[in-house]
């Protein structure tokens, strides 16, 4: 395997004493669709802004396609596309003026044709003023501008905000098709379901640190089970404290829901000593896995 498309080494960013990100290490390979998930304020946008050379790291380094993100930013940016989380384009322009302005930064043969193709795909009216567009339409403009120059790497920061489900599906299909043609995609989001739909590998970021880096399938296959038990009698939470039980939520009518990561036989042995009315052991959703990691 060649050099990673994105190679982040020990990257930290502090805003005075406040933490942005701390000792981030990440490698994203060519042709990957990589998910970067975490809630607001976890450090996703800080990481991306360092990659885009909008802010400077306090320490550590980052390379894209083997080039340093600070020293060789111009060469890097000629090969990447970026969708920001806030879709604010130049409000005084219409859609076509903005896209034409964007494409002139690159050497794109048949640029007008590319503008037309992508705008048609996203049903964009090129004559509308950007300031008159809805959030969803501004997001579409943002998507189109990121792909005009056929980038090798696409960096997406919360790209689906404001998009209706139909357009989300068009967008995801486009991403899949570009990925099949070799495009690497770095997909940052706090919505796990969309990461689950697209990504092969995922990093979970919490309070500026990567707490989990995993294949999405492995994440699902972890021993973690979601267990729902309905006891016939009231059960004290403390009596339920067996190794591997976490995130216990007590519901009505003696109902307990928890995550279990221990030996399933031990759980069964414990339960057999109690009178239970109902037992459900199931695969947790990715959202539940995510919350589990966060709470811990």
């Amino acid at each position, binding site marked *: 395997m060649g050099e990673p498309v994105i190679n982040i080494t020990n990257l930290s960013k502090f805003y005075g004493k406040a933490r942005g990100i701390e000792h981030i290490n990440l490698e994203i390979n060519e042709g990957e669709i990589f998910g970067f998930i975490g809630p607001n304020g976890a450090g996703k946008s800080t990481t991306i*802004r360092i990659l*885009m*050379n*909008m*802010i*400077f790291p306090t320490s550590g380094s980052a390379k894209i396609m083997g080039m340093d993100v600070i020293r060789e*930013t*111009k*060469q890097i*940016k*000629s090969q*990447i596309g*970026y969708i*920001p989380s*806030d879709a*604010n*384009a*130049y*409000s*005084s322009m219409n859609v076509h003026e903005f896209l034409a*302005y*964007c494409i*002139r*930064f*690159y050497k794109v043969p048949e640029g007008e044709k590319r503008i037309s193709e992508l705008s048609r795909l996203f049903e964009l009216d090129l004559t509308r003023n950007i300031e008159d567009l809805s959030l969803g339409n501004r997001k579409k403009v943002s998507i189109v*501008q990121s792909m005009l120059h056929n980038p090798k790497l696409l960096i997406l920061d919360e790209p689906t905000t404001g998009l209706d489900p139909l357009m989300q599906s068009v967008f995801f299909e486009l991403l899949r098709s570009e990925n099949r043609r070799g495009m690497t995609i770095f997909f940052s989001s706090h919505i796990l379901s969309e990461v689950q739909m697209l990504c092969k590998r995922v990093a979970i970021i919490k309070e500026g640190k990567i707490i989990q880096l995993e294949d999405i399938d492995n994440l699902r296959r972890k021993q973690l089970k979601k267990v729902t038990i309905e006891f016939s009698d009231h059960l004290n939470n403390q009596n339920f404290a067996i190794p591997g039980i976490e995130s216990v939520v007590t519901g009505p009518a003696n109902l307990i829901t928890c995550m279990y990561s221990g030996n399933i036989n031990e759980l069964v042995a414990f339960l057999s000593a109690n009178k239970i009315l109902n037992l459900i052991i199931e695969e947790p959703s990715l959202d539940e896995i995510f919350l589990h990691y966060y709470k811990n």
Partner: protein
Amino acid sequence: MNRNLFLMEIKRNSLSLIIWMTIITLLISVTMSFYGTFMENQSKIAGMLTIVPKGALQFKGISNFNDLLSVLGFYAANNVIYMMVLGSIFAIVLSSNILLKEEYNKTAEYLLTRPVTRSEIFTSKLAVIYLNVFLLNFVTSLAGFICMELVKKGVFSIGAFLILSVYTLLLNILFASAGLFLSTLIKRGKPITTFSIGIVLIMYFIFTLSKITESASKLGYLSPFRYARVDAFNPDYSLDIWHLAYFIGISLLLTGISYRIYLRKDIYT
């Protein structure tokens, strides 16, 4: 410099430039249209001016009433100082916003993610500032020249007029550099238009105060307006080498520091 960015910025600022050019040209034209009436009533006006404190005339570069009788003296006393103030406001508003607006309008995420270096962004925007300030000065000075040609009652020194125009241009560029410098100091971009205009007005106020109040005369050294000579009717009127060095030196220094800061500035949207 990036041509695409430069042309886009020129287009973005063109309406504002046209409005400022129109306003200043109209002010000059209206004021100069009074020159004929002024000359016809000079004895009455001379009488009225005797009750005006001397310092109030001195800040316009006038040492006695006769200075106003030449068309260049009239132009310098009544227009240039306003061209300097208004031109400087235009320059500082333009320069303090040209980089910062990308942050507070949240368009920096589009600009900084293009294949263009910080250095190219800075130089392209700087070129736009210089071009706008130069065009404003050229058009307004030309308007002043045409007005003087139309209303003059004798000859006036074109050399002195050109020196006056150069002083106005240099002052405007100094304030443009100050605006650029201030904008690079602002973290998490917010507009500083009001603050910038305030700086020009305070500097003009300090200059005026230093001219009309003996005890505040030393304060005038703080104001760039002091170094832009407007007494074009004086026979020894010339481009003072030290004043020239002051304007060019401060402008280059502020621009250089702004450049260094911008290259390493964290840009948020």
